[in-house]
């Protein structure tokens, strides 16, 4: 299994500012995923981040709002830009098990509150 850490674990931010969330994996992985979980809701996939290429965004999410970096096979960042209170959520990164299409390992999440 993969061990995933995220920083920060939580933050309170002012409207209009940006926050960058880091995700570190203890092994090399091809694909990393970023999810948003709004309070009391399920997970929504924001984007898939492949090393060496542009992230692939899901419908409703755009690069200008959620830029993603993937500089190597163990690390990724997600930035939440120009934040509003509606961005208050838990942001989770995950990686897939190596055989494709199966289970995912999740980081502990970053709890973001925008005031």
């Amino acid at each position: 299994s993969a061990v995933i850490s995220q920083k920060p674990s939580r933050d309170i931010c002012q409207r209009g500012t940006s926050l960058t969330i880091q995700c570190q994996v203890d092994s090399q992985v091809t694909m990393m995923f970023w999810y948003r979980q709004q309070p009391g809701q399920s997970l929504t996939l924001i984007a898939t981040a492949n090393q060496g290429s542009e992230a692939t965004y899901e419908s409703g999410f755009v690069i200008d709002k959620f830029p993603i970096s993937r500089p190597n096979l163990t690390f990724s960042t997600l930035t939440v830009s120009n934040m509003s209170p509606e961005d208050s959520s838990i942001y989770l990164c995950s990686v897939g098990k190596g055989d494709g299409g199966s289970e995912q390992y999740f980081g502990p999440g970053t709890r973001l509150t925008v005031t």
Partner: protein
Amino acid sequence: SQQGEEDPQALSIQEGENATMNCSYKTSINNLQWYRQNSGRGLVHLILIRSNEREKHSGRLRVTLDTSKKSSSLLITASRAADTASYFCATNVGGFKTIFGAGTRLFVKA
């Protein structure tokens, strides 16, 4: 709309009782997974059942899959207070993309 819909939305039982959660989905799948989430933390993978499987067991967990009805159920037997969490089904439709259901919030009273 989401691929997976779960019911009930919330479930409260006594310790020792069994808990059953159901998940329905809309399109053909490669596999279906169940995850647990404690208090808004990261998700933990519980079990995966492939589209050609009908039932799978792991410890106190039993998962069934009915592809003709596009539904799955998760049974937790002899529940414990530590089982209190949110449970999500997730469907894989190809590649790595996984779509999560709305979740069932389980509360086990000691």
